[in-house]
């Protein structure tokens, strides 16, 4: 059986498409949470709001995809600015 480190092209394309959609939805959910916190809605209630949203997903896979997209965004936002490949010494 042929093995490859690379995912089949179809899966990559699907992931790219899904990620864009879920990333956009994460952005909206984050905006919603930020506004609620800004209006002094207790953190626990904001959690309840997001938890409610995730449990209303059509499938656990949808909820997991949203969570995955959120984790990627969170990790990206905490990453120090990456060096450009054109930087000296790169």
């Amino acid at each position, binding site marked *: 059986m042929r093995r490859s480190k690379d995912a089949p092209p179809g899966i990559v394309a699907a992931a790219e498409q899904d990620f864009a959609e879920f990333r956009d939805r994460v952005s909206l959910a984050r905006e919603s949470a930020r*506004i609620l916190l800004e209006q002094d809605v207790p953190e626990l209630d904001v959690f309840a709001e997001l938890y409610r949203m995730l449990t*209303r997903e059509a499938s656990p896979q949808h909820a997991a995809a949203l969570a995955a997209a959120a984790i990627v965004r969170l990790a990206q936002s905490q990453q120090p600015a990456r060096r450009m490949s054109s930087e000296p010494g790169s």
Partner: protein
Amino acid sequence: MTVLSRPRHPIVADALVLAGEWCRGQVVDGAPALGHAVRVALVLGCHIPAAAPELVAAVLLHDSPEYAPKDLDLDALLTVRLGPAVTRIVRGLEREHTALDQRPAPDVTTEDRWTLYASAADKIVSLLSILGRAARAPDRAAYWRSRRAFVDRVPYFAAFHTAAKPHLPPSMAGDLARPVVRAEQATTLTGRAGTNPASTTDDAKATGEMNDDSDGASANA
């Protein structure tokens, strides 16, 4: 950037403060009532990114007739602080909520586009919320049997979509069609004779959005 991102227009900022005050302590479906108002505003902004501040403010306050203090002259306050357009939209949505309970078919005012947009955004969020709850219910048929009032209103939602569709941005018409079709299909399966969902189904298919279940937050942001 969303319609609620900073810097906010003073009318939007003021509406958010009022909505926050009036919704404080109010819970809808286990979550803060303000969350619903914010979701509807964000959905509106997905489809109408350049929405007027008065429209965004009205959407944030669309449930204010229910949540504002009863001894308050709501019309006067909204008109003076936020402008007459906000009062008009808030009351227009209130009338539509009342009609939903009393009439079999909607009296859609297509002349007032802002009220129509606000109403469509509210329906997208509300329908997806109910459908999402049904999707996760252990026994969907039992869930729909316990929601007779909603099931009886499904033809109203379909008629609203049919009437509003030509006047909505295509993406919004599609995002409204999707949950309406799903509601028709789900409630028809439970034994209720729904309306013919063919035209709405075609519309939803045309947008390619038949199988997703976002919470009103489509990928159009």
